[in-house]
């Protein structure tokens, strides 16, 4: 109970900081603008079936979600260290895992809010076409799960780095590494080919969501990825108490 309260307290403060400063609004505006441009330029290009337009929408939204997740999460712990506020959390009756979870949930909730604001685009398809609610729900579930894993990547990078910029670079590099493992799977021999393919952040696991298909395997993958990265971030935060 106390743990949950602490997580909520830390997440709430972080969320208020995001909406109370320009950074959060700039990220939000940039993502919506890019999504809108891509929707207009690519998804609505030519004559397509509504389902195809929606699939394309989720495809490019996954890209903006990943980039936004890194920008949102790079500040989470690195900024506390830069501003000298981490000792406040360390000296409080709060466990390291609660600090990490509070930070993660703040970033994740902000990303979810931002993602939901893109809903007007698929709803526009309804004006001249027909969209399945299942397809819509599956696509957004995929974006949330992908976003969760990416915010966890950023949280881990933010725990490692001393500054936000370095956290952004480390987070971006980790994200790219997780994206290109599918290419490694093409050139690697079994059993590594299968392992690399399974690890890839986007190709194998996100594509079904784009098309409105939910595999338990993919849901488990994103949740596991989130858990592993948050576990690693917690270990890094704990290790900081030794230095």
């Amino acid at each position, binding site marked *: 109970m106390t743990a949950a309260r602490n997580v909520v307290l830390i997440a709430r403060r972080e969320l208020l900081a995001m909406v109370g400063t320009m950074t959060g609004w700039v990220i939000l505006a940039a993502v919506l603008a890019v999504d809108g441009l891509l929707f207009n330029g690519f998804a609505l290009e030519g004559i397509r079936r509504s389902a195809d337009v929606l699939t394309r929408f989720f495809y490019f939204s996954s890209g903006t979600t990943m980039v936004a997740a890194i920008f949102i999460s790079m500040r989470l712990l690195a900024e506390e260290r830069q501003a000298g506020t981490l000792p406040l959390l360390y000296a409080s009756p709060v466990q390291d895992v609660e600090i990490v979870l509070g930070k993660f949930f703040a970033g994740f909730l902000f990303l979810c809010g931002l993602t939901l604001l893109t809903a007007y685009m698929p709803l526009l398809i309804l004006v001249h076409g027909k969209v399945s609610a299942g397809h819509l729900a599956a696509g957004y579930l995929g974006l949330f799960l992908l976003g969760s894993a990416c915010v966890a990547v950023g949280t881990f990078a933010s725990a490692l780095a001393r500054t936000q910029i370095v956290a952004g670079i480390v987070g971006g590099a980790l994200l790219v590494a997780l994206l290109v493992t599918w290419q490694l799977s093409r050139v690697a021999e079994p059993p590594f080919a299968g392992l690399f393919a399974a690890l890839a952040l986007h190709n194998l696991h996100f594509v079904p969501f784009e098309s409105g298909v939910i595999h338990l395997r993919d849901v488990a993958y994103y949740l596991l990825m989130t858990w592993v990265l948050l576990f690693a971030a917690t270990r890094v935060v704990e290790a900081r108490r*030794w230095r």
Partner: protein
Amino acid sequence: MIQVDGLTKYYGARAAIRDLSFRISSGEVVGFLGLNGAGKTTTLKILAAVLLPSSGTVRIDGMDVAQAPRSLKQRIGYLPEEAPLYDEMTVGEYLRFVAELHGVSAARASAAVEAVEERTDLRSAHAELLGSLSHGYRQRVGVAQALVHGPSILLLDEPSKGLDPAQIIEMRTLLRSLRTTHTVLVSSHILPEIAQTCDRLLVIRDGELVAQGTEHELEQRLGGSGSVVVEVRGSAAAAESALRGVEGVRCVTVVSGDEDRVELRADAPEALRPAIARAVLAAGLDLLRLDVGQDRLESLFLRLTGGTEA
């Protein structure tokens, strides 16, 4: 009670503190004195469970701080060297956040914030953004955040750092007001500052505890490092001779003066002032001024901490 035993902390190969051991009783206000880099901040961080020691233990009422149960941390208020403030929050929001983080219920948090704002004279700044506050106010908010959850132990790392004289006096008054209700460990590299507020001093040099005791005890141990300034009307030679005749005076220097007015400095404990006054009068001189030398505390501090005397 705070019990520190064999506390050692290495940063890489460098030992920031080595084998520190001391005790602080409940209700004591203890000054932690040392030059910059002596290991004060590292020690306070370990006491606040912000940092883990390489070896040794810190126990508060028998509980190991490194294990840091929630109930123990709720009893500690910690002000780091730089006040840990979130610039985008107002003073009230921030203090409420810190109170709730330390286990104060949401229902009681408003009252706790109001009380600590009264105590630290921050009521007028309640709605101010932390980012817009002056250094003095930021430091005051830093102390307020250490107090807001009602801890019984306060660890304050250089609370007077960067404050102007008026703010230093306010901070001193605040520390004095905590004397009966809190156990306080306050670090500083300014001896006169903490000598006036603390019951006892711990002196750290190059990571090792080199002395502890009251200011008077430390002075005694160093063979009396004080000086007394005397101003008389009369001959400088007669005055010098009179002072040299007082038992316990180690050295006498004529600082300035002419035939009517002479200022002398005698290296002697301040307790010798009555004897010095009698000697001056017995020599037929007029005593115009008798004061404790202003450099007494600085001299003691430099001797204790290994600094260089000018």
